[in-house]
């Protein structure tokens, strides 16, 4: 009983636990395919659209932008969507399904710590993906981007929005399998709205409006302004903020550890 009663510093080892969790979860993330998808797929697509651009030089429609320039924000959003909707909920739903979160909850560390580390890792991967894409686009592919504070803010908001949606999936999916079905069902419509196949500027009309007010379409539009150091239309930022609040509320509301 002696070692028990003098437990006045319950979080004395919590920093050690956090760094150890970060180390182990980080290694595990490298062994899973999800991080690579969030990193490799967008870089691959960047090269593909650069190549399409070389075959179709000049501006797209009357946008004043080349194919590469127009698609860079879409590919960034694709990376955030892949990380947030596929990787994040799959790992979390699995850890819950197999009883790992329950197992951790019998130790002095809360399972929320696990989720926090998982989120942090995915944010780091998203940041790395962003830096790689911007650097490759500017230095190797010659895109005339001007990155500033506004871009950083918009990118953070886009990541928050799409990761919150991923947490909604993690909350409602009973199994890893279910999480991958839900994510798969949402992934392609969201990619469509992001303009991966056809940009809203090309379709125009009410479809363009729907795309602009979708979670991914709003993010793409805001990013498109900000990569040229322009202030994005406030509607895009408000749309993303509203989605983020709704998704975060739903994720918290329906969250389960078991």
């Amino acid at each position: 009983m002696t070692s028990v009663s003098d437990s006045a510093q319950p979080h004395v080892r919590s920093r050690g636990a956090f760094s150890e969790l970060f180390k182990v979860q980080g290694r595990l993330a490298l062994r899973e395919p999800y991080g690579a998808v969030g990193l490799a797929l967008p870089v691959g697509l960047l090269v593909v659209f650069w190549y399409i651009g070389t075959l179709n030089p000049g501006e797209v429609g009357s946008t004043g932008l080349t194919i590469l320039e127009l698609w860079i924000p879409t590919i960034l959003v694709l990376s955030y969507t892949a990380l947030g909707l596929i990787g994040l909920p799959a790992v979390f739903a699995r850890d819950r399904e197999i009883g790992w979160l329950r197992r951790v909850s019998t130790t002095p560390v809360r399972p929320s710590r696990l989720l926090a580390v998982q989120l942090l890792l995915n944010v780091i991967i998203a940041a790395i993906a962003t830096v790689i894409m911007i650097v490759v686009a500017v230095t190797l592919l010659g895109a005339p981007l001007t990155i500033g504070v506004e871009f950083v803010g918009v990118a953070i908001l886009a990541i928050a929005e799409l990761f919150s949606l991923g947490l909604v999936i993690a909350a409602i999916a009973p199994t890893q399998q279910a999480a991958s079905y839900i994510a798969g069902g949402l992934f392609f419509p969201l990619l469509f709205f992001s303009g991966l196949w056809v940009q809203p500027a090309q379709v125009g009309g009410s479809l363009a409006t729907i795309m602009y007010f979708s979670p991914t379409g709003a993010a793409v539009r805001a990013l498109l302004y900000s990569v040229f150091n322009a202030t994005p239309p406030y509607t895009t930022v408000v749309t993303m903020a509203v989605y983020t609040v709704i998704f975060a509320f739903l994720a918290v509301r329906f969250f389960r550890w078991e």
Partner: protein
Amino acid sequence: MSLAPVPIASAAVPAEPEPVISVQHLVKRYGDVVAVDDVSFSIRKGEIFGIVGPNGAGKTTTVECISGLRVPDSGRILVEGFSPRTDRDKIRQFVGVQLQDCALPPRITVGEAVGLFASFYRDPLNADELLESLGIRTIEEKQFRTLSGGQKQRLSIALALVGNPTIAVLDELTTGLDPEARRETWGLIERIRDRGVTVVLVTHFMDEAERLCDRIALIDHGIVRALDTPEAIAARAGGFRVRFVPSAPVDDQTLRAIPGVESIERKDKYVTVRGTGDLAASVVDALAKAGIRVTELEARGGSLDDAFVMLTRETGPMGRDRA
């Protein structure tokens, strides 16, 4: 109730030690189903305490309430003087838990898992020494998904012990293991106890409980049917067995008339009767009167298994009504 030996009793321990765990009138329902219905027992420091019973008896629910994973509907639980409900954080420092049906992330290695759990506790054991003592140091680099059933159980024990707990709760530890791995695991559990750790062992294997436990709470349909040493429970249920070869055929009616006989089984030339009292003498006397000689007589005290069958059969219908 007889006093169980207290293995690590010493001058430092008072004559009648405080129980490390006390459970009083525990009740837990899931919807309309009563999983645990007024269970009470206390566990002494340093003993291996068995919570035994058939599947669905309420064993796991009971230990989940003890470890703070579930909140009881009513009743009072104290673990080293702390309530698992209100002092969950304190309890998690010194109670190591091995859960039934719990897997690890498939790609985590043995060493990573144990190192990670060590980082969760204030005063953990040396991970390398622990792995060495459990015989899994050599598989430190292996990923969880590649481990055998026995290796997974050893890792699970390692995770329950790495925080240097004073109490270890082990739930269905040997289910799914081959006989050799089971015996090895039993040895490990005895060594845990020898380190002074109080072990709460949940099992539905009566041979396991009989072999390992100092005392047992036998739970069925959420009720404690017996609470004593395995020997006392086996004896109290009167599970004596007498096996013999009669010199002439003997019918069931004659056997049933013998005082104490409760059941009869026949296999080849052997007749086995089970029952209570001075069974062997009664059988020999009664058959001698009927002019039948008894050869190859073999009598032995009942096993816990026999006692369990009797105790749960006696009260079975009542239990079913409750469920």
